[in-house]
């Protein structure tokens, strides 16, 4: 069940054991903490290890003004992470402090491992107080000392420690101390001297290049508000014997799109542990904390377990239990009534990716097609439709060519990461990539308004102004094309319209001197970066939501794709543009006789654009919503969304937990998830697919999404469209795959048969070059990567853009334009349809304008700071992880990251409340004062909701839902003008 440890032999046992922690590799994800608690059954507040986030106190200023950005190599303050656990000192102060005789703490004479006998410990705390490293834990409920014993039980079985096994960053090793030290020195690494107390600690820390920070932000410490000792779900706190699994099953983590391979360990039909799948060729047993939190989720007494019906006024939060039969009958009757009165299009369906691909690309689509509504969508327009659209425009498909393999992305000599905090959003994949990079000696440059964890591990950090990545891309292309640094052969053979692009960009003067003031970066830094990309023997350009959640996102992504392509970095080992995730063509269709064509087009691709239709009936009324996930936490434009939900005739909410959306629901239905229902949950980053069997019962009466849709379909006359047989997830997947050329051959049997339960699509083509057809053609009309064609010009012209990307920024940018002006409010109103959608969808016209009156108006009103929102730290994924107690324990409070200069300006202290206000609303968060962010920018994580974490308002309250990309309807979540003030306020907009 874990990697072997050659320590059981007599000779090895004589060695002093130690952990060696590479501070250069640690990414602060706290997976080691989760693994430790899971392994040892520790509850809230009870720790054997803890990862400290440490920042430097002083360093060069970053970003604006000097415009240099400041990478670690340029003397920026370090952001480092320090895993703290028992140091297993040769002279353990804890042992000497213990008043019990024989002492409750002992030291093994051979291995040097210091252990506490909790049966003898009386909980006096003397040992905790005596440890100068603060490395002794204490069980605040059982009231005894707890400490790391290097996983004695695992070592007895020849296994390494749980922390070392899961560490996504590959930062922790267990072994004989002398061997580890010798190996570190042989590798040229410096071992940190931290023996300030003459105790001779065993743990080895390898120095990070930028040095170790000294200041721990208040928000990374535990909050007094967390750690309710009574809410932890089993199997925490249960004896080891009660947690020993009786069966183990391979599967995938369903939480995020990294889709890490895991082993589910069951006992008596209950999930007792989740560990990484060691034989998985990509993850090799590494998992992040989220996967381990699945144990909490599947055992959580707080899960919804009974269908409920609203009994008070909407929003009053009063519900009464109802049977499934009756709930479904009533919902069906109401739906039929609404269809009779307003037409089938009056039903809207919204289910987030949490519910799984079978739901969002299967059951809901088939139901909607049979019912006759076009208004069905998932979270994609909030997440990443822009990159999907850009990929399709450039290469004809959103199948990302590259994959996570050492001979593919691992072969790059340069990683340029723009707007992708991979180390926190996909810790395991970043750890894998960083390992390849460090071993190969490849450089990593991160472009991001804040020094994310990814940036902290990079060779260079460029602190770009939010929303200006397109300008950076344009200037880099200008530098490369202007100096003939491009890959001429690749351009000639594989790119359509690259000359037009070159002429356009040179004529426009989009050079580094132009881009410098726009981006806040030094022109020389832009030029140097461009030349580095051009000269690299394989450059991977990584991007993610930082470039994708903007109103200029499609054009930004196209420009960055152009940058990759003109340097020959496309579909080659070690070279490419990677903006996750790959999206296969997957739209199951009903037979014509079962299909009911909508009489009216989809109102907007982005569901936030449905608000006016719900509230005011324009362009036509939406009267019913069936939804999963938590739109009333996550959607931008919360005020509009709440008014819209309140105006509906029927709101059905089908989810795991009662949350903000539930409060406005008429019916609250308990959902099964992950291994409670089985099936295929996610399409992973790089075209991986994997299968989970159904392994455990859901809580109470919770049901799978598929069951719900089929039962509902039967009651509204769609039994033939969604037959009973499709309740089997395998049958549903096979039905979906049958309609998808991208997924041919990857039916449920194939996925189940794969050794680690995942395969890549297209089947049999794993490498980057494998995506093109035998003639090297891309699936575009020209067979080449398309920069400029007349057809493209016409399509993009329909939304006020052009095939040759012209720079425009967000309203939030400083200066006076150019910006995009939407010509309608929340959604399209006319008859014109989007040329970018296969499904008829109202076009929301826009045009570029040279000035920025809205930005001027807001700045004049004092909104002079840039607000960036984004994913929280590694233990969290949007809103649902906030229901997991250990995720709350790790990052308890909604925070606002701001620069010390900004903090000084408004007079706020680290950890104190700070109020952030935009034209849309306001909220209060705790201040995280950090030099790792531009002075003109603040960062607010998403996902904290009022019900889960005590945040009365969410990031969604601050964001204008109208600022959306005209091609992909992608919401701008990354660049909003705001103003700050110290202290709390009434949280009213």
């Amino acid at each position, binding site marked *: 069940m874990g990697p072997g440890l050659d320590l059981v032999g007599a000779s090895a046992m004589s060695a002093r054991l130690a952990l060696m922690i590479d501070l250069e590799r640690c990414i602060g994800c706290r997976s080691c903490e989760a693994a430790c608690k899971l392994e040892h059954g520790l509850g809230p507040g009870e720790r054997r290890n803890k990862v400290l986030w440490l920042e430097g106190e002083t360093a060069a200023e970053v970003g604006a003004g000097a415009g240099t950005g400041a990478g670690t190599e340029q003397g920026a303050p370090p952001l480092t992470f320090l895993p703290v656990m028992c140091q297993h000192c040769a002279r353990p102060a804890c042992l000497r402090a213990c008043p019990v005789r024989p002492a409750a703490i002992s030291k093994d004479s051979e291995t040097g491992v210091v252990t506490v006998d909790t049966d003898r410990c009386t909980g006096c705390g003397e040992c905790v107080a005596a440890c100068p490293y*603060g490395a002794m834990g204490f069980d605040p409920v059982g009231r005894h000392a707890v400490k790391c014993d290097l996983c004695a039980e695992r070592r007895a079985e020849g296994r390494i420690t749980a922390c070392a096994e899961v560490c996504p960053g590959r930062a922790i090793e267990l072994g004989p101390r002398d061997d580890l030290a010798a190996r570190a020195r042989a590798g040229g690494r410096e071992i940190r001297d931290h023996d300030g107390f003459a105790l001779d600690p065993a743990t080895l820390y390898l120095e990070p290049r930028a040095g170790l920070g000294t200041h721990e932000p208040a928000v990374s410490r535990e909050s007094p508000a967390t750690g309710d000792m009574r809410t932890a779900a089993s199997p925490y706190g249960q004896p080891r014997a009660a947690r020993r699994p009786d069966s183990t099953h391979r599967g995938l983590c369903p939480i995020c799109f990294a889709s890490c391979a895991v082993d589910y360990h069951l006992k008596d039909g209950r999930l007792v542990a989740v560990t990484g799948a060691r034989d998985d060729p990509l993850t090799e047993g590494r998992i992040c904390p989220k996967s381990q939190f699945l144990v909490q989720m599947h055992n959580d*007494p707080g899960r919804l377990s009974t269908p409920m019906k609203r009994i008070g006024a909407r929003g009053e939060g009063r519900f009464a239990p109802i049977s499934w039969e009756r709930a479904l009958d009533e919902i069906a009757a109401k739906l039929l009534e609404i269809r009779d009165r307003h037409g089938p299009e009056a039903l809207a369906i919204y289910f987030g990716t949490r519910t799984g691909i079978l739901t969002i690309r299967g059951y809901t689509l088939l139901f909607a097609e049979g019912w006759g509504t076009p208004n069905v969508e998932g979270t994609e327009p909030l997440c990443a439709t822009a990159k999907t659209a850009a990929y399709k425009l450039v290469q004809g498909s959103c199948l990302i060519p590259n994959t996570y393999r050492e001979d593919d992305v691992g072969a790059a000599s340069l990683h340029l990461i723009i707007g992708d905090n991979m180390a926190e959003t996909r810790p395991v994949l970043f750890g894998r990539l960083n390992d390849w990079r460090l071993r190969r000696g490849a450089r990593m440059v991160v472009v991001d308004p804040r020094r994310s964890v990814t940036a902290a591990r990079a060779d260079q950090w460029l602190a770009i102004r939010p929303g200006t990545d397109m300008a950076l891309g344009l200037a880099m292309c200008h530098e490369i094309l202007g100096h003939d640094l491009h890959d001429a052969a690749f351009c000639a053979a594989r790119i359509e319209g690259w000359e037009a692009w070159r002429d356009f960009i040179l004529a426009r003067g989009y050079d580094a001197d132009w881009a410098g003031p726009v981006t806040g970066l030094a022109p020389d830094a832009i030029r140097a970066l461009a030349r580095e990309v051009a000269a690299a023997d394989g450059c991977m350009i990584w991007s993610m939501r930082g470039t994708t959640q903007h109103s200029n996102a499609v054009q930004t992504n196209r420009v960055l794709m152009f940058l990759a392509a003109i340097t020959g970095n496309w579909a080659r080992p070690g070279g490419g543009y990677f903006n996750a995730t790959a999206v296969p063509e997957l739209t199951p269709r009903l037979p014509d006789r079962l299909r009911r064509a909508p009489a009216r087009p989809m109102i907007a691709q982005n569901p936030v654009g449905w608000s006016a239709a719900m509230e005011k009936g324009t362009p036509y009324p939406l009267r019913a919503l069936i939804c999963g996930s938590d739109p009333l936490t996550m959607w931008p434009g919360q005020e509009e969304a709440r008014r819209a939900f309140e105006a509906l005739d029927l709101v059905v909410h089908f989810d795991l937990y009662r949350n903000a959306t539930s409060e406005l629901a008429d019916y609250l239905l308990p959902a099964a998830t992950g291994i409670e229902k089985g099936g295929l949950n996610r399409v992973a980053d790089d075209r991986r697919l994997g299968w989970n069997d159904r392994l455990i019962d859901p809580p109470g009466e919770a*049901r799978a999404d598929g069951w719900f849709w089929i039962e509902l379909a039967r009651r509204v006359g769609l039994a033939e469209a969604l037959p009973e047989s499709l309740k089997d997830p395998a049958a549903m997947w096979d039905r979906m795959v049958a309609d998808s050329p991208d997924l041919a051959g990857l039916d449920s049997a194939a996925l189940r048969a794969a050794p680690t339960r995942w395969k890549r699509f297209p089947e049999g083509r794993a490498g980057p070059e494998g995506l093109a057809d035998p003639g090297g053609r891309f699936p575009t009309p020209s067979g080449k990567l398309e920069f400029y064609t007349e057809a493209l010009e016409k399509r993009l012209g329909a939304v006020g853009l052009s095939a040759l990307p012209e720079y425009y920024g967000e309203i939030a940018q400083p200066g006076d334009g150019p910006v995009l002006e939407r010509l309608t409010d929340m959604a399209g109103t006319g008859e014109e349809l989007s040329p970018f959608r296969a499904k008829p969808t109202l076009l929301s016209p826009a045009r570029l304008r040279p000035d920025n009156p809205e930005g001027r108006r807001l700045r004049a009103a004092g909104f002079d700071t840039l607000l960036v929102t984004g994913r929280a730290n590694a233990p969290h994924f949007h809103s649902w992880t906030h229901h997991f107690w250990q995720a709350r324990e790790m990052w308890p409070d909604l925070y606002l990251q701001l620069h010390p200069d900004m903090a000084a300006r408004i007079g706020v202290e680290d950890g104190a409340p700070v109020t952030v206000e935009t034209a849309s609303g306001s909220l209060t968060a705790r201040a995280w004062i950090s030099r790792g962010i531009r002075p003109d920018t603040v960062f607010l994580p998403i996902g904290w909701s009022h019900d889960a974490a005590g945040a009365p308002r969410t990031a969604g309250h601050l964001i204008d839902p109208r600022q959306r990309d005209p091609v992909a309807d992608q919401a701008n979540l990354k660049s909003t003008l705001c103003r700050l003030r110290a202290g709390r306020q009434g949280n009213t907009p």
Partner: protein
Amino acid sequence: MRLKPLTSPPAATSKPGSAVRFREPWEPSVAALRAMGLLAIGGGGVALAVAAGPWLAPGRPLTYALGWAAALAMLVPPAFALAKRSGRARRPRAWFALHAWAGALAVPLAALHAGGGTALLPLALLALLGLVSAQGVALRLVAGPALARRMGSRAEAFSPPDPARRAALAGLAADKRALLARIGPGAEEAQFAPAPRHWRAHPVAMLRYRRLARLESRLLRRPGAPLATRPRRWHIALATLLLGGLAAHVVTVSLFAGYAAGDGPVTWPHLAEWGRGWTWWGLAP
């Protein structure tokens, strides 16, 4: 393993994950600790009120018996302290629980024993008993989470060492090793913790050793930081004072029964009636 079919509406509700058990059943839970607090303070108060009635006058056989019960309960904590330090406690955690319950129980017993008496010194002793009991409960409730929060609280300890402090600590360790050669030949300084037998055999050397250990402890702490277990030390100090008071009280009512009875008769078993008519600085017994 057989899973419930999910193809039809469920007939019955199964329970979600069970709640957690973090401790042994006999260990005081948070609720039990609160009960102890209630017993000590509330029970003590009620007992005082009850005892003020005519049925429990000081010196009656029942109050006398209650006094012995209270005294025995008050002796459990020092027994616990000795047992765990002498190596005679096979189950130190059970001893701990016993000392906590006994300490809490002693308060109402002692209050009843007071029998509505108004003598200042015994009442002061009773108040001290209540204080020590309440302090113990509060310590257990508050100190646990506080101690848990100390994990990972000393990032500065991983900074480059202060050579002077390291040298001082190394010197102290050397001095301790030299002393240990006399106190416990063969003992390893790194793991040595004094036991009563060391004190009996080498009291002077042990005093010196303790001084060195305290110096070391001070140097291991964050400069200027108070000892984290100071409240516990106060608890022990007050409990020791209480024990002394108890001993003084027993001696007084046994040998100086005349003083304790004041102007009245001695109605309880005693050894001598010395001290009748005595006052301490004008205070009646």
